[in-house]
């Protein structure tokens, strides 16, 4: 009796669950099980950035006095820290260096990756699968293992303390990633299109340039912005291969040049971190979907 009566009062539950996705009914339960943890996740994940931003615009008096000021808010915002950063340090120079290195390394990697992916995926040859596998394995070699021998190599080549050292070493982690992503994109383009072009008398390189590449444009954009972000964020090579203060990249310079002795100027440090994050954040906001595509694409392939 009770056994049969029990399911009767909650038919809505069955209705909801028929959608397939796990759906925790509605009302308070949904709030506690879904919206509450979700908002805690979002707050915790974003809080450090809020804290970075609010610290960057706090005057020193408020920054170090929690008793009289609410630390979560700023009463009299100031641009002093940002001003100091832009006009009394080499910050603009660091930004320019980072931008140049990231752009050139990305262009170089894309060029090499497009050709390699085309050769592996389209010009099928004996052992092309093994070349693809070797390039994938190269992605699994972390920079932490390579930086010491690379430093000696860079020194022998006379590239130490130059932008070229970074431009030539960043492709070691960009090419495997981009090639792998582009192979996936090339696979999705019907080969018949290229055959048609070649029957019409186009050479293979013309086909690549005029047919395949325009069709693979979303893949190129994904790989490009992702490679740019990775080079912008790179740290260990830039730390090991660059010595002069004015030639450093933003992540390294903020950590090594803005920290002076034991007194930490948290305001300008946070301003430096914030400004260094903004370029990638802007790029990211325009191309969110490409980021997600390249990230999940790289994992799926």
């Amino acid at each position: 009796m009770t056994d049969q009566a029990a399911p009767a009062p909650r038919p809505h539950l069955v209705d909801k669950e028929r959608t397939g996705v796990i759906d925790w009914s509605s009302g308070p339960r949904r709030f506690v099980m879904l919206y509450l943890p979700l908002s805690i996740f979002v707050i915790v994940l974003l809080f450090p950035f809020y804290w970075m931003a609010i610290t960057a615009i706090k005057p020193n008096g408020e920054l170090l006095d929690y008793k009289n000021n609410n630390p979560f808010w700023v009463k009299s915002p100031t641009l002093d820290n940002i001003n100091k950063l832009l006009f009394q340090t080499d910050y603009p120079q660091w930004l320019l260096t980072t931008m140049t290195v990231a752009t050139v390394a990305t262009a170089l990697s894309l060029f090499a990756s497009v050709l390699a992916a085309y050769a592996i995926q389209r010009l099928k040859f004996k052992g092309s699968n093994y070349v693809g596998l070797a390039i994938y394995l190269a992605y699994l070699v972390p920079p932490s293992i390579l930086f010491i021998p690379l430093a000696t190599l860079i020194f022998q080549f006379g590239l130490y303390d130059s932008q070229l050292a970074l431009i030539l070493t960043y492709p070691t982690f960009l090419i495997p990633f981009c090639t792998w992503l582009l192979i996936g994109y090339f696979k999705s383009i019907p080969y018949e299109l290229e055959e048609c072009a070649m029957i019409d008398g186009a050479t293979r390189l013309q086909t690549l340039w005029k047919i395949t590449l325009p069709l693979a444009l979303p893949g190129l954009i994904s790989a490009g912005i992702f490679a740019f972000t990775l080079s912008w964020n790179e740290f260990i090579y830039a730390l090991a291969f660059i010595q002069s203060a004015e030639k450093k990249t933003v992540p390294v310079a903020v950590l090594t040049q803005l920290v002076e002795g034991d007194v930490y100027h948290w305001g300008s440090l946070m301003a430096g971190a914030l400004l260094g994050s903004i370029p990638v954040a802007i790029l990211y906001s325009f191309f969110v979907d490409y980021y997600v595509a390249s990230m999940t694409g790289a994992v799926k392939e």
Partner: protein
Amino acid sequence: MTIAAEARPTPQPTQSWLVRLFDYKPFLIFICLLPALGLLLVFLSYPLGLGVWLAFTDTRIGRSGVFIGFENFESLWHDPVFMTSVWNTLLYTGVATVGKFGLGLWLALLLNNNLPFKSLLRALILVPWIVPTVLSAIAFWWIYDPQFSIISYVLVDVLGWRDTYIDFLGSPWPARWSLIAANVWRGIPFVAISLLAGLQTISPALYEAAMLDGANAWQRFRHVTLPMLMPILAIVLTFSVLFTFTDFQLVYAITRGGPINSTHLMATLAFQRGIPGGQLGEGAAIAVAMIPFLVMATLFSYFALARRKWQQGEDND
């Protein structure tokens, strides 16, 4: 007839030898692979080999070394700082991976519901992963400040749960947990968004079938979601373990291995000994000591993945 002949002159005579060379397949393959493989061979494969060689020499900066066999490894074996760094690396990788995957999977399951502003949410959640790690590590450094930590402020002055401010980075164990927390924070977005992509490929029909068979929410998760997610989980796990194990930036930015070398990971110790310390041979030996762990982790997840694929094939067909 003449029109056709004019419109389509046979292309062969007009092509120079260069064009024909570039259409010659073996040559084209060689040219296409040259930039990528050239760069990778010179700046990746060769340094990898060179690193192994350096590990067996006593090279210092400015002086090329001689072969000394296993001396570097022997001295490291008796070096308490190195042994601490190995232990730290294992602890850091183990705990942070469990944290990242537990919380990341939870977040992915939450995001897999019907939600308003879903794409905006997804975009916001990925932000910690996009921003340069060092720069967010600096924010954590400030959050962990002994005097002005916002966490301490909330615990002491707002909630009144504690009487004193926490000294996050001043002693070994709190410093280790602080670093692990920062690493988990940094890793959750990648895990969550990758697993979300995996979750979205699971057909709702499977859940319907499970529900018809009377499976409850936990059983559906255990017997439908988890097995279907396993292939992508294994790959994400491999990458995550690989990059957590060789992590350098977070520790270097927040503690630089301190206090008293108690939070060094193998990567930061290799850097400290190799570059500022000038002992390239010893630094390379520490880096090389990471390789067996990495190979083991990769093989483990590769075989876990292969086994799962086989199981799934059997289950589905």
